[in-house]
């Protein structure tokens, strides 16, 4: 029963990892940009939520109404103002620039908020749980997080495959120069993709901040979790990313159950195992 509970908690945690991963995957898919600052942007979103909660005295989940559009705006401006200039045939400039961005965000947050770890308080919902019977129980908050993750991934899937904007994303991903012939302005399309990516980051950042303590230095580890979830699931597959996140979450939960120190190690081992056995991921996008 204890193991069942462990796996259940791991699955719920996986939803959060899938959200770390979804924004990363979207950006890579549309413009072949590996955003090294992704984890730090998650932490930035958490701090914007912190400021919003302190200033307005609202629940962190309500603060999403402000944090999501704010991060989307930052994403669009960042893409148009900086990242578009790094894109080209060479993959290295965007890597270097986003790495630099990661350093700047970490140190900026350190200056503004110190290295003290903080946490957002979501109120009574944090300790509420639902009894599943037989000694099994799930926290309301983790369940809500998982539900949000599924909704976000489902929403992205719908956006990509059922809307005109999604068609424009896929066309631009296929062939940038011909996409321009369709009247698509790549600079704008990339800006919109980054805006959506950071809107997802905003949700992930707030959920992270409610779930556990955070400080300016934790971004890179979140990037690794997101990256591992993307690779496990297979590049370009959003539902695969959710499964990747769940596998990572379950592996970490099982590791922690065996020995508290094995938490992260077990996640990385699961990632290595998938990489060794199925390097293209479990659900690679089938190209015609």
């Amino acid at each position, binding site marked *: 029963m204890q193991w069942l509970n462990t796996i259940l908690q791991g699955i719920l945690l996986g939803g959060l990892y899938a959200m770390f991963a979804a924004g990363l995957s979207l950006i890579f898919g549309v413009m072949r940009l590996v955003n090294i600052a992704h984890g730090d942007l998650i932490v930035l979103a958490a701090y914007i939520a912190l400021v919003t909660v302190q200033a307005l005295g609202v629940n962190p989940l309500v603060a999403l109404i402000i944090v999501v559009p704010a991060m989307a705006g930052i994403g669009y401006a960042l893409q148009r103002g900086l990242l578009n200039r790094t894109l080209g045939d060479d993959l290295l400039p965007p890597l270097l620039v986003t790495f630099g961005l990661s350093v700047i965000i970490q140190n900026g947050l350190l200056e503004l908020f110190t290295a003290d770890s903080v946490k957002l308080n979501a109120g009574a919902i944090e300790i509420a749980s639902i009894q599943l019977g037989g000694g099994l129980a799930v926290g309301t908050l983790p369940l809500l997080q998982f539900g949000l993750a599924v909704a976000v991934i489902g929403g992205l899937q719908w956006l990509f495959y059922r809307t005109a904007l999604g068609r424009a994303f*896929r066309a631009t991903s*296929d062939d940038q120069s*011909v*996409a321009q012939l*369709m*009247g698509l302005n790549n600079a704008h399309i990339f800006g919109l993709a980054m805006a959506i990516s950071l809107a997802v980051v905003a949700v992930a950042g707030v959920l992270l901040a409610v779930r556990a303590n955070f400080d300016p230095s934790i971004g890179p580890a979140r990037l690794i979790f997101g990256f591992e979830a993307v690779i496990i699931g297979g590049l370009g597959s959003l539902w695969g990313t959710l499964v990747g996140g769940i596998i990572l979450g379950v592996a970490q939960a099982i590791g922690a159950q065996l020995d508290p120190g094995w938490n992260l190690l077990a996640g990385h081992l699961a990632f290595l195992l998938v990489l060794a056995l199925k390097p293209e991921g479990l659900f690679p996008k089938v*190209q*015609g």
Partner: protein
Amino acid sequence: MPEPLLEVRGLDAHYGDFRALFGVSLDAAHGQIVAVIGANGAGKSTLLKSIAGMMRARRDSVLFAGEPIGDLAAHAVVARGIALVPEGRRLFPSLTVEENLLIGGRLGRPGPWDLKRVYELFPILAERRNQPAPSLSGGQQQMVAIGRALMSNPRLLLCDEISLGLAPIIIRDIYARIPAIVAEGLSLVIVEQDIVQALKIASHIYCLQEGRVALSGEAGALTREKISAAYFGV
């Protein structure tokens, strides 16, 4: 000759240090079909890419309906009403046939062309509408590429080597639809290696040779000898 819709005036083009076009001039009037012929590497595709904005040119070296558009980006050129069917078709492989067509029409320019009209022109595409674009035959893919360009309701359609890599019977089939396209009131500039096909359909011919216009004139007035002399540079 009626008032020109497209006027190319002394157009130059470069690929790095390599100069591909030397002061090329060309006119296309409303409703006219103009063919650009020439050997491989003569600069035919470069000419179309420059007009379509895929390669930037001097502002006043391309005039469209009297407006200078030479320095506009491709996405702005298509908004003015110029569509390019690129060499090699270049469909979006992760999109279905219908999605490829829809993305061509995303600007919503008013005009006669919509999904229904494109499917009337190429009925086979209606049957294949939900298939991924790469699953179609070469000829069908070319139909999608033409349909995708028409969906933007252009006033000028640029076609780059639509016969390339296709069987003669398919080429004839595709060329047979061109009168129906021109009947909707648009002008056509086609780049074609198949000279016989080009002479049959075009009213005016330009022959490029090493980046320069070696010969131009009414299709009927050009003799075979003159064309082959300009084509091969002998």
